[in-house]
């Protein structure tokens, strides 16, 4: 009984703010200012969404950017990370290079990205790639590829060696073994890595805000600038917040099995 109450309390604390966010996003502007107007708004309005999405259609563009960047990041991170993990696990490199490389991937998790952000900005400036999707995608891939590599490494460690030896006897070279046997078997790990990567990219703020000023801006960057500009437009802010939060919440619900595995394995193995 006490346990159940405690869980309900925890749920209220964890979810309450999101309820407030969503309710505020449909609360008429004038109702914000009335003191003691009550939590449940008397009338509901979609004005804030109209304001956020309407006009110049900017928000829609940022939303599209976020979707494009998260999708491309996920695909690229898997495309680069999975083969790299396989190579790290199987290539017998001299001088313990496999361990060195694996640690190189791991260490990305442990330093502040702000250290990289400044020079990354300069590099992108020199390449003329500032404010392009590519600049944001490359940054996001570079911070998410380590997830993919480490999740896959953990999985590959547990794959019985006979399966691949058997494929070897059946005539597969390394690429054939990877594509025909290892990849299909590592779908659970790949799924977890994909979900984690997508979330990370969708939510990432620092690197995106460093290199994207307009054309490649993502939603998190938008919401921060939005607030400093017009800090008091609570309704619009709530609508914007909802647009960022809701897709992630739904996506998390749909992919919870992978998500939980990704979070726990990533941490426990690391």
């Amino acid at each position, binding site marked *: 009984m006490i346990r159940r109450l405690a*869980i309900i309390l*925890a749920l209220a604390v*964890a*979810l309450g*703010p999101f309820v*407030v*966010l969503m309710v505020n996003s449909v609360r008429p502007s004038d109702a*914000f*200012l009335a*003191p003691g107007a009550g*939590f449940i708004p008397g009338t509901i309005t979609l004005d804030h969404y109209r304001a956020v999405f309407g006009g110049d259609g900017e928000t829609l563009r940022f939303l599209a950017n976020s979707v494009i960047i998260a999708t491309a990041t996920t695909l690229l991170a898997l495309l*680069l990370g999975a*083969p790299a993990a*396989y*190579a790290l696990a*199987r*290539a017998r490199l001299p001088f313990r290079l496999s361990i060195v490389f694996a640690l*190189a*991937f791991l260490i*990305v998790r*442990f*330093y*502040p*990205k*702000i250290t*990289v*952000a*400044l*020079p*990354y900005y300069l*590099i992108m400036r020199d390449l003329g790639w500032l404010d392009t999707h590519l600049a944001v995608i*490359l940054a996001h891939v*570079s*911070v998410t*590829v380590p997830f993919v*590599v480490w999740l896959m490494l953990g999985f590959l460690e547990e794959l019985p060696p006979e399966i691949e030896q058997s494929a070897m006897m059946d005539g597969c*070279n*390394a*690429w054939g073994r*990877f594509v025909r046997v290892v990849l299909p078997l590592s779908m659970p790990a790949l799924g977890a890595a994909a979900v984690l990567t997508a979330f990370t990219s969708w*939510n*990432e*703020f620092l690197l995106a805000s460093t290199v994207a000023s307009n054309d490649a801006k993502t939603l998190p960057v938008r*919401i*921060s600038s939005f*607030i400093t500009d017009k800090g008091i437009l*609570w309704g619009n802010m709530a609508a914007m*917040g909802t647009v*960022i*939060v809701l897709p*992630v*919440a739904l996506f*998390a619900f749909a992919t919870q099995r992978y*998500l*939980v595995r990704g*979070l*726990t394995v990533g*941490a*426990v193995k*690391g």
Partner: protein
Amino acid sequence: MSDRQILLLCLVPALLLLALTQFYPLAQSFYVSLHDWTLARSPVMGEFVGAQNYSRVLHDRQFTGALWFTLGLAAGSSILSVLLGFGLALLTVGENWKLRLSRTLLLLPMIIAPVAVGTVWRMMLAARIGPVNEALGALGLGTPNWLGSPGLAQVTLTVIDAWQWTPFSMIVMAAALASIPPDILAAARMDGAGRGLILRRIIVPITLPIILLVAMFRMVDALMTLDIVFTTTGGGPGFATHTLGYWIYVQGLRYFNISQAAAASWLLLALCMATAAAFLLWRRRIMSWQVRQ
């Protein structure tokens, strides 16, 4: 093509990307930190100044203030989230659908963008329209200026960070708890151990390596805190809630005071690495001590 060549081809692109987008910038940032360069004044890097940027940063009152706040936030947030996360994991461990659903729902704060979390809490804590103060006011408990007064804002930010990341420690520790063989617990119960004793003598020691790991991740990540500052306080009031990350961001990307920002960012990097290393060493000590017991 030999297997070896194929595997190398598989490895090279990812390594190359990492080298170009992470390690090269890292090195460059270190290089810049040893030179004099303010982008606002000059598009090219100035002369070599040795450790001058480091000493200047370390003598900067804003920087040291940010350092203390960051350390406090990291310690407070990680302690809070580890304890609460462990508690929630104990509460929700189990395999019926209600518990599983609760665990999933409790995850929500951590999968949301930190900037959005900042927005949400700014709204919650807003002076006049925020439900928190409305409720407190209705109960006659006063209406504190959560994000507006320096000391309180620091605590508030710490709690918000803990709120966002408690689910992380919960989910990892729930996995650790679930992996304790049930017969160990059953055996302890047969031996007549009460709940408190089982928790102290069995559950905590078994999960201790994981707890320490979670604490390390939390601590290191909290030292890098940056995003939520943007959408809650913007570093204010004054410089009260400048985290190191935020201070560096402002110095580097707003004032383009690049070389000092780079120096500061390497100090932060060193702090993160040292923290991670210390935790890992501590964990190893404890684990080997446990093995010897």
